[in-house]
């Protein structure tokens, strides 16, 4: 059997048991008592800042109070009212940048209420029974095509179905879930949660899933627009940016996203090959996840090289600390200039950078790191080209998801608005669905903001 010192890219660096342990739940669920203690810390703030900080505006103080009062399932209902992917969000949201970052107890003591884990406690309670809390409105006779079964598409499809519309949900992949299924770190979405969540969500009825159908290949936007009353695009970012470093084509240089997708689909992770010395280029969540998971698979050294300072990294401070706590080294202000090797990669050459405000420049100082595997995690791009107006390389859409084309809405990572996060996909999918509903039915769009505290803001 290989071990962490075996050169090259190889599987079985660690025992199966060790790998299983490494990939166990990052934040184990709270039990009932722990949840009550954690819930008790919530001050039930007026017009709570955590709600404002949540892209889906879940009424957080209310659901926490419901947990404290012994009704986690009612709490779940409060969550799902605003965010049907509340279960996944509870696991993957960078809460330190969202709700928990805004918690007044973060300001007061540096120890926020554990909103994410409480949300998981509540949503798990209801989903454990596979009980679906919503029912469909009477059929409207309207048919909507939703392209992309990631968070944005799923949230949109669910809300449309709930409003009584008939939804056809297309995805290029056979398996739905988008990056929930293929991207999120394994230790955040343990135990096939992504598929369980899709199955649970589909219980609403009225949604038919058409896997293996890609827009641009098997479907055209024109045809969809003529066949359906409305179209929603939630196609995410399918492309990967190029490194533009010499030797980028050597063996061992890979897309981080693809590596993670393979990892997420592998039934036995100990069979996954990983390098002895791994270098990840990038500074976002993908870079962090690729680095941590390489380490968990048994790589001896894992280094993240980011071209700017750590404070500019897309990954939150918490994610960065998580990586370093697992033994990942983060080198800041260094950009790749070449991948050296003899066919296969052996070393990465980096050059230090300075940022004088007008852009990055190399300082001329270089160094080489041993690397038999190099992951590119320098951002994903929109690849779909279907005649829609773009903004910063993504689909231009207004706050309700309306694109430049009549009867075509979009949301999630593929639109310019918002951050590339699961929760933003859930919010934009939902809001687009409400706008589609209002448009198709000729009614006013329902407000999706939290109803609490509105008075104070006016």
């Amino acid at each position, binding site marked *: 059997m290989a071990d962490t010192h075996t050169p090259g890219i190889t599987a079985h660096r660690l025992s199966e048991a060790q790998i299983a342990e490494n990939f166990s739940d990052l934040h184990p669920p709270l039990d009932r008592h722990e949840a009550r*203690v954690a819930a*008790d810390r919530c001050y039930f*703030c007026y017009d709570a800042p955590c709600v404002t900080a949540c892209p889906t505006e879940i009424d957080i103080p209310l659901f926490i109070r419901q947990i404290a009062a012994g009704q986690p399932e009612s709490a779940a209902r409060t969550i799902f009212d605003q965010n049907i992917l509340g279960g996944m969000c509870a696991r993957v949201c960078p809460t330190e940048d969202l709700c928990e970052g805004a918690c007044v107890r973060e300001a*007061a003591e540096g120890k926020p209420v554990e909103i994410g884990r409480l949300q998981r406690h509540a949503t798990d309670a209801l989903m454990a029974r596979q009980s679906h809390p919503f029912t469909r409105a009477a059929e409207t006779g309207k048919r909507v095509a939703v392209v992309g079964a990631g968070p944005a598409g799923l949230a949109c499809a669910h809300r449309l179905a709930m409003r009584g519309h008939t939804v056809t949900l297309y995805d290029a992949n056979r398996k739905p879930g988008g990056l929930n299924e293929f991207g999120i770190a394994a230790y955040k979405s343990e135990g096939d949660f992504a598929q369980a969540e899709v199955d649970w969500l589909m219980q609403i009825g009225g949604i038919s899933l058409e896997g293996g159908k890609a827009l641009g290949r098997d479907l055209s936007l024109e045809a969809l627009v003529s066949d359906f009353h409305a179209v929603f695009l939630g196609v995410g970012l399918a492309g990967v940016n190029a490194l533009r470093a010499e030797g980028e084509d050597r063996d061992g240089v890979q897309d981080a996203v693809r590596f993670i997708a393979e990892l997420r689909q592998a039934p036995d992770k100990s069979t996954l090959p990983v390098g002895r010395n791994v270098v990840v280029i990038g500074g976002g969540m993908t870079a962090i996840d690729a680095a941590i998971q390489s380490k968990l698979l048994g790589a001896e050294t894992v280094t993240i090289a980011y071209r700017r300072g750590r404070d500019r990294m897309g990954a939150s401070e918490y994610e960065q600390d998580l990586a370093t706590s697992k033994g990942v080294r983060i080198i800041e202000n260094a950009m790749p200039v070449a991948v050296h090797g003899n066919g296969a990669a052996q070393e990465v050459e980096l050059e230090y950078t300075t940022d004088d405000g007008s852009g990055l420049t190399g300082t001329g100082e270089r160094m080489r790191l041993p690397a038999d595997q190099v992951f590119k995690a320098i951002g994903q791009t929109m690849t779909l080209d279907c005649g829609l107006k773009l903004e910063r390389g993504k689909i231009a859409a207004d706050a309700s998801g309306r694109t430049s084309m009549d009867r075509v809405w979009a949301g999630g990572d593929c639109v310019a608005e918002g951050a590339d996060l699961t929760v933003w996909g859930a919010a934009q999918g939902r809001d687009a669905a409400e706008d589609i509903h209002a448009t198709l039915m000729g009614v006013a769009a329902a407000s999706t903001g939290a109803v609490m505290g509105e008075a104070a803001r006016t």
Partner: protein
Amino acid sequence: MADLTTDFVGIKSPNPFWLASAPPTDKAYNVRRAFDAGWGGAVWKTLASEGEEIVNVNGPRYGAIYGADRRLLGLNNIELITDRPLSVNLEEMAAVKADYPDRALIASIMVPCEEEAWKAILPRVAETGCDGIELNFGCPHGMSERGMGAAVGQVPEYIEMVTRWCKQYYDRPVIVKLTPNITDIRKPAMAAKNGGADAVSLINTINSITSVDLDNMAPQPTIDGKGSHGGYCGPAVKPIALSMVSEIARHAETADLPISGIGGITTWRDAAEFLALGAGNVQVCTAAMTYGFRVVQEMTAGLSAWMDEKGYTSVAQITGRAVPNVTDWQYLNLNYVTKARIDQDLCISCGRCFAACEDTSHQAISMSADRTFDVIDAECVACNLCVDVCPVEDCITMERLAPGSVDPRTGREVQADYANWTTHPQNPSAVAAE
């Protein structure tokens, strides 16, 4: 280290902390452990007449009310008095007293309201060498149905009569334990005094139902589908006990009656408060039942440290010190005007003060778009609710308006002199101020 030695109606103990009559004092084994841990005295679990059958339920006896993190705030019980034979208890008491001569040992007694019954038990109790007796006129469940406990404690004439018998047939101090399940606590206290009692102790437990089992629609604790009211004690009852103690301490006819303070005492501070309102010593039950006997070490160390800090050299110096400041509402100074002040540096912007004042009080707190909260003096009636709901200590305080300044709410100048309701112009029965 301040000297905590206490002399309560002639009964000496190394500190003012006695265990109240309850399960912690039901056996020699417990009481020895308590004395070893440092308790100054113990009131033995209430004794019954020879041959009086006491049978406890075999289901749950307790119900609990919790605060955060299952912190026990209130305890309810449906236990009866001791269910062990009288002779066994008396033998053990004698042995314990002999081994711990410096500790106070008190016999709690509950026998039928008949002179013969008291005449029979008192000499036997005296033989144990215990330092005094406490008459349990307080137990609100079970025993009261047999015409004892609270059934006696609720009839002042009975209290006086029984106390008189005890003074007649027993020559050491007699303490009368009062039930709080009565409208005016001064009445039974007066009766005890008239009967010759050396002291009163209070409070015993308060009638209570802790909770209802909503699946079985039965009060808790539930015994085979049914529940009965029990007696409530623990931290939750302290405010009620403090008030009752103060009523007796400041009532002209009972002011000189020594008081053993009981009810919710959990820390040295609770004890100091009872002493300040007139108690000569204190008794503790729930705190010991929740945390074990070692809690007394925090109580004695804490009281002594506080006394040193304040320059008190004996427990007696504390007794009753706050009593002169307990008054009736009508004598409170209406010229004392305060306003809430929010310390913006401490404020964490939770908005609880805003919700409380805006929704339920006087709309005297403003909220800005950036979540800054300010008090509107022209609306603030100084109710203090914002202070009570603010999660940050000392963030909101009540500041007095200087005499001579104008209260923006009333538009009137704040007067320096004292004026109360009895002289207030809006009081139809006001007397002219002198």
